[in-house]
Every structure is written in C-alpha cells, then in structure tokens.
C-alpha cells in the first residue's frame, strides 16, 4: 500500500524544500516543528504543522497514524538530534519508511543503525552533483531530466506480472529498444531482491513473474510496456530490500 501522508520533522530550508517537492505526491504533508521555531510561526502558518519536542512521549504521536499509511522524513539541523529522533520514531513506527538527512557518510552509518530506512548524506550528495556537472554535463542533465521528470523521458520500475508473455523468456532475447522503445538498464530478481543485475554486465537473465525491470524511456512507451507486462500497481519500495 502506498502511503497517504508524508510527515516531516524539522522546519529548516531542507524541510521546506522537501515539503515543496512532496506536496503533489501525497494526500497531506504534515510538519512537526521544534518549539522555539514553532512559536515564531503566525497562526495562519500552523495548518498541518504541529509542535514536538525530542523528549515527548512518542506513543501519542504513534497513536495518531497508521504506520503503513505514512512516510517519515527527519530533517533536523543536527545529526545527533536526527539520530535521537530516528530511534524514537522507529520504536513507535516499526514498519514505516523513515528517510533521514545526515551530514556525511559517518553519520549515515549511525543513522542506519538507529533505524533509518534510507539516509540522504547531504555533503556527499552535493559533492556528487558538483562533480557530475563538471565531468559529465550531458549525463547530469539527462539523469536530472529522467529522475525529476523534467522531460518526456522517465525512469520506471515495472514488476513482471504473472503469465506475461515475457515470463520465462531470456532478457537478451527480447528486442527492448527496437520493439518497445525502452532501455532496460537493470533487473532485480525477485529471489535475490537485494542487488541489481545490470544488463550491460552481460547476464542473460531468465525473467520470472515478480522480477523488477528498471527501464528508461518515453512516457507513452513505458506506459505501453507496463500495460503489457507489468503488474497493475507500481512496485513500491517495501518490496525492495535496503
């Protein structure tokens, strides 16, 4: 089940940008803000925004949401606070997807130990982007357009449905580029669901229902392929081991 609500902890520039990008994706984006910032908000700014303190009793917040209906972002300024917040949230929301911001790789490890499902290391992410802009400008633009859907090109993950005509066929036996107009960049085997089989590594993988294809292509081509071979609903992250 895809979550309905995104809950964001923190009210800094990162949190504001996350909120801005998520508003179109979820029914509601809810913010939890530390008291010293919350108290500075005007009354009209307090809609869907609540006060919280790291020393709060988290059971109260836990009781308000169904853990399968929410996705959580921890975006406090300080790594130590984010670690404390992640541990507290994980105790209450055992299965929710928790994405936490960390300054660097060192804090990434600690945050994963604290129970984060995914960490966005700010410094590394910025450094990667800068290096790519300088060294691979065309690829940077391409990936940016694909990932953030700023052109007709997009990346999609399609789970092969049962009885699809490609079920049991070999990956390289299908003319993806000529017939479907898409490029299959990787496959995730349903039995080995923790790593990618990159097509350019040369594995001629036998496709099974439940395998996930990671494809790049134009909107209409991907939709057509999905209709033909994909399950009715887009694969969600929970099927994907961390």
């Amino acid at each position, binding site marked *: 089940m895809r*979550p309905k609500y*995104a809950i964001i902890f923190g009210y800094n*520039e*990162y949190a*504001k*940008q*996350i909120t801005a*990008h*998520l508003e179109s994706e979820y029914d509601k984006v809810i913010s939890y803000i530390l008291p010293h910032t919350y108290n500075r908000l005007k009354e009209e700014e307090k809609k869907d925004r609540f006060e919280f303190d790291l020393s709060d009793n988290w059971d109260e917040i836990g009781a308000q949401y169904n853990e399968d209906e929410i*996705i959580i972002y921890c975006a406090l300024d300080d790594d130590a606070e984010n670690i404390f917040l992640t541990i507290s949230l994980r105790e209450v929301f055992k299965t929710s997807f928790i*994405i936490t*911001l960390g300054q*660097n790789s060192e804090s990434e490890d600690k945050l994963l130990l604290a129970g984060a499902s*995914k960490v*966005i290391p700010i*410094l*590394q*992410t*910025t*450094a*990667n*982007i*800068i*290096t*790519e*802009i*300088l*060294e*691979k400008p*065309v*690829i940077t633009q*391409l*990936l940016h357009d*694909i*990932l*953030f859907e700023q052109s007709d*090109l997009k*990346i*999609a*993950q399609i789970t092969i449905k049962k009885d699809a005509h490609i079920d049991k066929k070999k990956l390289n036996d299908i003319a993806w*580029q*000529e017939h479907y107009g*898409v*490029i299959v*960049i*990787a496959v*995730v085997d349903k039995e080995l669901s923790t790593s*990618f089989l*990159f097509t*350019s*590594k*040369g594995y001629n993988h036998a496709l099974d229902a439940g395998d*996930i294809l*990671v494809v*790049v*292509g134009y909107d209409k081509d991907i939709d057509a392929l999905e209709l033909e071979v994909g399950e009715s609903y*887009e*694969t969600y*992250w929970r099927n*994907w081991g961390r």
Partner: protein
Amino acid sequence: MNFLARWTVDFSYYLRANKPYQNIKTFFKNLLDNNNYPYKRYFDMMMIALIFTSVFILIGEVKNDVHEGWKLFNDYVVSLIFLIEYLLRLWTYSDNSELVIESYEKSLYLERPFSFFRILRKLIRVKLKYITSIAAIIDLLAIMPFFHQLRLLRIFILFRVFKLFRYTKSLQHFAKVLAVKKFEFVTLFVFASIIVFISSVLIYIMEANNPNSSINTLFDAFYWSIVTIFTVGYGDITPATDAGRAVAILIIISGIGVISFTTSIIVSAFTEKLDEIKESQHIADVSKIKKFYLVCGYDEVSVSVVQKLIQRGNKVVILDSSSEKIKRAQSEGFTALNLDPAERATYHKINIDLKRQVKAVLCLRQDDVANVYTALSIRSMNSEIKLLSILMSINNKKKLEAAGVNEIVYTQEVVGMVAKELSGKAVAFEAIHALRSEHLGIHLEELVFDERMSEKFTMVKEFNLNKFRIILMGIYKKERERFFFNPLGESIVDEGDILVIMGDKSLIKEFTLYLHTKKAHL
C-alpha cells in the same frame, strides 16, 4: 633641440614601434630572468652544464694533460657564451628607448629643453647600476679566463661556480634568506673584525720578539687569530709566552660567541622564512600545472568535491584566505595556497592563465557574499571561464546569476528532489545511484565522437555495441543542443556528437579504442 638629441628621440620612438626588436628583447628578458618562462629551465640547465665542464677541465689541468680541444673550448667557447650572456643581461636590464621617450615627454610637458647629455648620463647611470651589482661582477670575473692565459688567473674560473646562484632556485632562496639578516651579519662581521684586529696586534706585540715563538710577522699573527677565532686551531702556530696564551684565551672565548651567533642567525632566518619559501615554491608549482580545477574556499563540501575530482584523475588547486584551512588541506595532500580567492591580485601572484589552464572555477565557500565576490573577481578577468557556485540561501540566487555564475548548486533543493524521488521510485533511484557511484563496475560515460571516429563510422549500427556489451543511451547533438534517446541502428552520428554509453569500465575502454582504431579487441 640639437641634432644628437633629435636623432636619439627619433631612434627611441622607432625602437618602441619596432615589433621584431621588442619581441627579441622580450624573448631574451624572459629567457634570462622570468622563472615562469618554459624555456628558461633549459637555458639554466645548459649554463649549469657549462659551469661544471669548466670546473672539471680546471681540475683536470692540475695534474694531467688536458686535450687542447677542451682547453680551447674552455677558454673561448664557454667564455664567449658567458660574454654574450653578460651583454644580453646588460641590454635587457633597462629599456633605454623607454627612458629617452619618458624623459623627452616630460621635457615637453614641463616646457624645458631636452638635453642629450643629461639623458646620456641617466642611461649610463642605469647601466652602471647593473654593472656594479654583485651578480654582474661575478659574471664579469667568470669571463676573465678568456682574456688571460696566465695560470694564476685561471683561478677566475671558480667564479663560474658562483654563477650557479643565477640558475638554481634553491641557492637563490638561500641567498635571499640570508639577505634578510644583513644587519645581524654586519654586526657580527664588525665584532669579529675588531676581535681579530685586537688579538693580531696583541699577539704580534707579545710574541714577535720571542725567539721560541713561531709568530714572526703581522701576517702570522693575523693567520693565527683567524684560525683560532673560528675554532679551527691547526696548531701549526702556537703562542709561546704567558701573555700570548692570555690573548689566546680571550680569542677562544670570543670565537665560541662568533660561531654560536652565526649559527643562530642562519637558523632563525630560515625559521622565519620557511613558510614563505614553501609558499613561493607552491605558487611556482601551481603555475606549471597545465589543466586544473580551481576551488575557492576549503569548507566541508570542498573536501568531498576535491576528493572526487582527484579520484577521476583531475588536478585541483585550492585557494582560501584562512591559513588554518589551507594547512588542513595540505595535510590531506592537496595543492592549496593561502591566498584570498576574491582578490584579483591573487591571480597575478600565482601567475596562471585562467583561460588556458583552468577547467572551471568552483566557488564553494559556505557564504553567498564571499562566493558572489569571488565570482565577480573571476568574471572581471575572464568572461568565458566556467563558473560553478554553491548557494546557501535561495534569496541570493539572482545575485550569483548576476555575478556571471554558470552553474548554481542549491543543496537544499537537491535534497528536496532526492527526497521526492526516494519516496516514489526507490528501486529506480537506487539503480541510478549505483550507476552514479560506479561501485558495481558499471559506468555511465560521455564519449566525444571526434574527427578520427567520424572518418570511420557514420551510423550507430557500425559500432558493434553488442560485442562490447555497451548500451547506447543516446546521442547529444551539440549543434542542435538536443539529446536523442535510444538511437536505433540507422541513426547518423556526426563529428562533435557526444555518445552517452553505459557499460563495464574495461569494456568502455576497449570500445573507445575500437572507435579510434577500428580494430576489434575481443
């Protein structure tokens, strides 16, 4: 204005306007004095080789018969080269035509007559200043063997060794460091001279008339004083009287003072100048790097960016006005200079050609004001160079754009986008992330389709992609600024296109080689 004055002025204007003359003069000036001139190194090496050849011939002559050819080479060829060098240095030391023109225009402005003899005196004074400099005197003495066949005067060849100061930077640094302590050395010299003078006179008075003493002349006394004060003490001459020994005690104690004082002056001079020497060495090294990224500011983001760029085989130079940060960068093994990247003077000091040497300038300080200032400084010097800056507050985005920054990276926005992508298509995102990080051996690379390739290939189907297990994601047509996704076999490839390919790192290398040579390596 008399004839001579008019002729001098006309000739000076002629020389100033004469391009070949100016070019030749600039060439020799660079060759002799500009440490950043690429050919100076070779010239210096040639001169050093000549100096050592000269000295070896001199040593060889002492006990052996040296071939006549070598003697002629030493006396005439080497000396002639040194003479030419001396004259070239004298010529390039000052610009006479400029001095004449400057003086003439000043006379016109002040409405006073232009005197030929006044300007002649001025020109001679300037040249004399060079001729009487220590370096020029050494140069002149080094030429002396050319004029003298007398054996004693051949010792002048040793002056050629002093010329090494001109051609080796470390010796120049050594001389510069010691020059800083000129006052201390003069004081020490005066002190030692007085002690030597007093003790020489005293020992002469005490010992000269004593038949048991070996000190018979004032020169013996002077020699003994020098040998004793510098704590050498050969023992060939020793005082024979009690009074003489008393003088010896005085001079030995003074000698300890002189030696320790000299040592401490040299050590302290080096300690004080060590950072400066290192810095000037770093600057010299930087100006020689052919292509590099210039990182302005060494904050947290810079560390990761610099590491990544170096991993990809790039050269990086860091500038920061904080000496602490620069020390940290240097301890990480990076090339870093303690200079303010926002100051134009910095770029003159490090003597780099922004257009030719710098791939891109990265403003990575965690401060928008500093980044805008740096970007403007760079842009005012070069309008084409690629400028990238991080943005700390979205309110300042327009200011960075106005400062001419080509690429702005706003970390918060990037994180926001990543957060969105992670929430929707985690698997796809992870696949892209794996490709970007290149951890799994699969790379996404850009390949410029150059002239050589375009002579051999015209269509995608000729690339033999399956053989190299390469996936051609698309072709970026530079002229049309458009990306063509998934080009099929019949698609045309033109020179200058950028191929975006995905594949195993080693196979990408093979594929690139194949496109260059059209020889299959599999």
